[in-house]
């Protein structure tokens, strides 16, 4: 019988991971797809899952009361969507929607956190892989906030 194990193993976030951890996570994983325009998660959802994107593009939006939804990041194949499942209250911030057909592996975080209780090495292994993603996203957002391409505030001598 075909399992989801190879899909987990080939995703970049699990590159080089001990296969025993993949086997542990398989029970929490399922294959999912979203059509263009479909929401993957909504702002405020209890974030009890994360997604390993295999195909397609997901837009992450925040809602501005004056401007409506603003896309601040898009994620593509090989990337991971969702990290709020790591810290209480495990609640999604912002919306995520498929820009085109998206195929992904969904990991049930409640199931995974239950496994952490019995296997701290698995928890440590996943944290080691998620923290660089979080810091990289934070760095990218910082650069976006700098608005580096904006017109200069003061007229230049040029």
């Amino acid at each position, binding site marked *: 019988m075909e399992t989801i194990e190879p899909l987990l193993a080939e995703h970049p976030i699990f590159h080089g991971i001990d296969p025993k951890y993949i086997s542990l996570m398989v029970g929490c994983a399922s294959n999912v797809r979203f059509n263009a325009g479909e929401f993957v998660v909504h702002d405020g959802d209890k974030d009890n899952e994360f997604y390993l994107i295999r195909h397609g*593009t997901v*837009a992450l939006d925040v809602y501005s009361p004056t401007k409506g939804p*603003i*896309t*601040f*990041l*898009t994620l*593509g194949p*090989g990337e991971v969507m969702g990290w709020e499942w790591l810290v209480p209250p495990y609640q999604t911030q912002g919306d995520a929607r498929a*820009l085109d057909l998206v195929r992904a592996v969904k990991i049930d975080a409640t199931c995974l956190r239950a496994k952490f209780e019995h296997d701290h090495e698995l928890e440590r292994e996943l944290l080691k892989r998620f923290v660089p993603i979080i810091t990289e996203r934070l*760095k*990218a957002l910082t*650069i*976006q906030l*700098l*608005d*580096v*391409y*904006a*017109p*200069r505030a003061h*007229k*230049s*001598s*040029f």
Partner: protein
Amino acid sequence: MTPRPFRVKRTYAETDDTFTLELEPERPEEGFAFAAGQFNMLYAYGVGEVPISISGDPLKPLPLIHTTRSVGLVTEALRRLKKGDLIGVRGPFGTSWPVIPARGSDVVIVAGGIGLAPLRPALYHVLRNREDYGQIALLYGTRTPSDMLFTKELEQWRGRFDMDVGITVDRATGSWRGNVGVVTRLISRAPFDPHNTVAMVCGPEIMMRYTVMELTKRGVPESRVFVSMERNMKCGIGLCGHCQFGPSFICKDGPVYPHDVLTPWLRRWEI
């Protein structure tokens, strides 16, 4: 040091605040040649002189093509020029993109905003001599979709099978369906061999800093990452000292530098 008179052949807007000038020399018999990455001092008569990179094709140097943004008195005067108006040109000045040493390597071009203009001549060169290079990747980031330069050419480049084009915007607007996020995020996905790559980077200094960090994280040696610096160039020949940066003068020793040469000086606020 005396500006050569050129006449505006054509002028057109690229975006709301960015425009391109096509210039023909009043004395064509003197010719004009430049290397990709060099700049000219453009003199709006009676207003002032500014350093502007050449954005045209080095193999077809005339008409001379400059793309720039209106940011102050002189560039605004340039933007208002009409067909037939006269302008002074000194140059070309400075160092160029390493398109010849890059033969045999993969080439990654990372541009931010108006930074695509000085890189376009290098892109023309590598695409014309496509068989001399390995993978070619153009990674381009702008503030919004409407800030993109050379949109028709971008479409053509995206349609080529022999190069990889990644485009992203910091802020999605309207019907934009492409990538959103900073240009540095495209680096990890671009197809190139970091140990055999020459990278050419141009954009705001802070964007270049983060780009170099990502490129080196992926394994490209700093000595093979080239950046184009911008400072207050005045004379263009390293005499006046306005553009001094550490031990070098950007107008003469730059604007294109291998990044490892700049590293000791980049985070010194007093420079």
